[in-house]
Every structure is written in structure tokens, then in C-alpha cells.
């Protein structure tokens, strides 16, 4: 099983990296790019993960505690093959 975690800066948080990428897209001809936000994508291979609801609860806790910082980021967790 794989867990995929997407972490994005919150809307209220300034993302200068996203702005720099947006400017580069403009420079390369994609004038339509209005907002770019840069986040993180993490893929976790899970061997013999056991009870799925318990696993999901554990993963959400780890997303909040370690993989994202709730002060500045939101996360999305996807569990699948």
C-alpha cells in the first residue's frame, strides 16, 4: 500500500517561491499563469500496514505533527495502491 501526502502553503501565507516560478512561466510565454503555489509531495510505501482505519488515524496524526506544520501549511492524505 502507498500513502501519498500533499502539503501546500496556506492561502494566507506568502509563497515567494510560487511567485518566482509564476514569473518564470510568464517569461517562457505562459502569460495565463496567474497564481503558482509550490508545495511538497511525499510518497510512503507501507509494508504489511495492518488495520486500515488505525493506519489512517496514525497517518493523519503524523501529517499534523511532522509532515506538515499546521501554522503555515495544509495537507491532503491519500491512501491507495
Amino acid at each position: 500500500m502507498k500513502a501519498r501526502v500533499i502539503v501546500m502553503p496556506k492561502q494566507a501565507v506568502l509563497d515567494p517561491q510560487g511567485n518566482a516560478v509564476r514569473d518564470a512561466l510568464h517569461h517562457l510565454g505562459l502569460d495565463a499563469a496567474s497564481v503558482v503555489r509550490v508545495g511538497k509531495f511525499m510518497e510512503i510505501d507501507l509494508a504489511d500496514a495492518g488495520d486500515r482505519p488505525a493506519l489512517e488515524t496514525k497517518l493523519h496524526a503524523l501529517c499534523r505533527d511532522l509532515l506538515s506544520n499546521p501554522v503555515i501549511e495544509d495537507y491532503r492524505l491519500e491512501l491507495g495502491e
Partner: protein
Amino acid sequence: MRFAVIQFPGSNCDQDCLHALRDDMAQEAEYVWHKTDSLAGFDAVVVPGGFSYGDYLRCGAIARFSPVMAAVKTAAADGPPVFGVCNGFQILCESGLLPGALIRNRSLQFVCEEVGLRVETSDSPFTCAIPVGTILRMPVAHGEGCYFADHETLRDLETHDQVLVRYVDAKTGEPVAAANPNGSLANIAGVCNRERNVFGLMPHPDRACNRRLGSEDGKRIFQSVIDTLAGRRPAPKDDAVLAPVGA
């Protein structure tokens, strides 16, 4: 006084802190490896700067789970001063001991320069020996020092007088945008917790304790801690009534 200087893999200002405390401030100071789970016998704790765990994931995100951080939390709850510089500030924010977070500098550039800092309150163990409004000069060196907190947290910080130092123009003492090296909200350079015994700041007092380094202003922060520990100045009370900034 006996200071603990925490060492994580990737700390690189641990020696600066130890040197400043021992040689410039004439205090006892010892390294404490991050695997240690007790800080018994120390009067104060310094979390130094650097790149703990390579800054992987987020600055301070992995260091906060080191065994020693449980001991730092226990120390913080008991009341001894806990003091984070640069990466130490990031670790204290990640661990929830201080409010807010430190994000990528607005310029996206690593800043390495001297800044002006205005002391916003003397009501803390870290600034009690420094009159309000004093301008200190010390260096910053970081890529992720832009202080961020939501509106409510910012309002709380100001209401409870928790912003101890702000980036200002060293000549005029004004917190102008040009004096802000990283885009921090409200020019915030350092904050303390509500109980006032945990303090973090991005600038380096540890690199400003000797005239040969260009400034001795960092000594005044260390001296405040030493004075507090020696009981020469009353430690701030939990129930102190504090006027909001600007009142």
C-alpha cells in the same frame, strides 16, 4: 550559572554559543547531545543555530522530536530560561514552545548582514537589563527567517507584550520595511511565550559578544538572563498586567 548548549546533528553555532557564554560572559556552559533526555543541573538552556537534520522537510521539523526536546519542554514548564537562536528559534516554534512559524525569506535569498534591533520590552528574563527602545546591533544569517503567524496570534503577541525585539533602522529606530531582512510580519525579530521564560530570535547575540566581532550588544541579552538567574532583577510574574504596544 550553568548553561546547557544543545547539539543536534547539523548544529553549527553551538561553538559560538559555548564560546560566548564561557569566554565573553564568564559562565559555565556545557554541550548537551540531542540524545540526552535530562537537563538536570542546568540553570538555563540555549538552543543554538545551524541546520539541524539538514533543514530537511522544514527547518526544525525533525529536531523537535529528538529526545532532548522532551527535556527542554519539561525545563520550559518548570520556568528556567530557554533561549533559541536562529535555527533554535525555528525548532522552538516547530515544537510549539513558541507561537508562529519561520518561512522562506521574502527575497528568497539567504541574508547574512548586520541588523538593527529595537528592544520592545524589559519585562522578560532576556531583556530585563536593557531599557525599552534600546537599539542593538547584531548579525543575522538565515534563509528561512520570515516570521509568520495568523492575525489572532499576532494580536495576542502584541496584547501580551511578547514581541521582545523588532528589526529597525539602526539610526532612526523605526521598524521600516528597508530594515526588515526577511519579510517578517510587523518586523518581528524575536518573541517569547506567554509565561515569558522561552525566547527565540533570528539574529545572533552569540556572534555579537566581542568588540573584535563588530558588536558587543549580544552580551546585554545574555547578561539579562544571568541577572535574572542571580535574582538581581525580579523575574516577571505570570499575572503581570501588561500594556499593549502603542497604548
